[in-house]
């Protein structure tokens, strides 16, 4: 592997200072599951690798009345072992359980998955469904960006030189709400989404009517997509199969996939509808307090 310097700052300020003025020649190391591979293959050639795992803000995993805070460097296995995330932000736990194998899940972070900004990232549609906000720190202070606005193109995002993603903030879980993430892959595990769908729904107190819904789509556009109109369409509708079928059609219309080795455009468009229906049904079931059987690996 190419030669580089290594730093493991203990504070956010120190980290920002290390990145400032480096013009991309410094790279942040969280789980390293993509970074180390990319340095080895020469796809990235940093002169400095900054290990951000020792910074407390990036390791936070905290639930409070103002919502849930997830540090950008928290590993997937810490996320799906967290009871609050499993029960209240289920879509995120669903996505973390199926990224890579257990060795990857021990290291890979949701923040890193987002910063790599791949169109097929599994956790991003879940973050979109759960209305996450990205907290970004840089030389000019801190700013917040809605997660659906974070990725700008394959591998590209809104981070400016010297900025790092610090945490993801989620609004407090609402009563009678539920969420789910699922992807389609031709194998059972260790694969990249052909299509991925995350959805969350909020039901009214009698659990018959949908109050609001959010749907995130992966691998069907140059960036993970927020299918906003499909979620909005469900507001005020009965929580039944007809409503869900209409929303799934609307989500399908938002999908703008390409043909590639994982699937054709036509197939992906079709799967977007089918998967959106299944994921919405599971989210509604969870909102009603029912448990959802998810086959291992799905």
């Amino acid at each position, binding site marked *: 592997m190419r030669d580089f310097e290594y730093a493991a700052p203990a504070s956010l300020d120190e980290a920002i200072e290390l990145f400032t003025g480096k013009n991309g020649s410094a790279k942040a190391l969280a789980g390293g*599951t993509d970074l180390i591979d990319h340095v080895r293959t020469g796809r990235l050639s940093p002169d400095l690798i900054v290990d951000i795992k020792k910074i407390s803000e990036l390791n936070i995993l905290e639930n409070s009345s103002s919502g849930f805070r997830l540090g950008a460097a928290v590993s997937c296995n810490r996320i799906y072992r967290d009871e609050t995330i499993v029960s209240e932000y289920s879509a995120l736990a669903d996505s973390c359980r199926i990224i890579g194998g257990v060795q990857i899940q*021990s290291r890979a972070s949701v923040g890193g998955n987002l910063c790599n900004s791949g169109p097929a990232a599994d956790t991003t549609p879940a973050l979109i469904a759960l209305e996450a906000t990205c907290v970004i720190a840089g030389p000019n202070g801190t700013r917040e960006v809605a997660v659906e606005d974070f990725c700008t193109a394959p591998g590209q995002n809104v981070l400016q030189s010297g900025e790092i993603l610090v945490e993801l903030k989620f609004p407090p879980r609402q009563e009678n709400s539920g969420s789910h993430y699922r992807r389609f892959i031709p194998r059972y595990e260790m694969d990249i989404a052909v299509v991925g769908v995350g959805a969350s729904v909020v039901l009214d107190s009698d659990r018959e009517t949908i109050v609001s819904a959010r749907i995130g789509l992966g691998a069907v556009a140059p960036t993970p997509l927020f299918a906003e109109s499909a979620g909005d369409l469900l507001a005020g509708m009965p929580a039944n199969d007809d409503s869900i079928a209409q929303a799934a059609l609307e989500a399908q219309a938002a999908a703008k996939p390409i043909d590639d080795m994982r699937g054709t455009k036509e197939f992906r468009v079709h799967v977007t509808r089918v998967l959106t229906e299944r994921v919405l049904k599971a989210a509604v079931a969870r909102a009603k307090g029912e448990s959802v059987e998810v086959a291992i690996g799905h």
Partner: protein
Amino acid sequence: MMAKKRVVTTSINGTETEFLCEPRQTLLEVLRDVLDLTGSKEGCSNGNCGACTVLLNGDPVDSCLVLAVECEGADIETIEGVAPTDGLHRIQDAFLECAALQCGICTPGFIMSAKSLLQQNPSPSEDEIRFYLAGNLCRCTGYDKIVRAVQEAAKAKEEVTA
């Protein structure tokens, strides 16, 4: 000028171990080339095959995707630390009994992952075993014998604890 070597202090298989490494060296390289612990194997070097699996602070990781400098203060368990001094670990026994290996390159990684699985889930279903071991590839056995070996090892534990 090359980046300076660092001193890293870890616990490896229960023994405090200090080593010198360059920032660019992976944990796998240090285990094999510096510490002469060659049980962990290099397969793909990109996190697909799991032949280099070790437990880092109790969790299975691909040691080819960990920088050795990251391991300051870490607790590392490798295949060399699995067997008790007077024999083999029950997972190793089960792999032999079930003929769960042919060429053997993937075996240390499978055993580390299986150990982690049985720590968390002492009696896993076949599906759970297959999913947990998905990050370990074997090009010889076709996996069935490996899955059976893990089932046998789980049973052996039940018998011990019963």
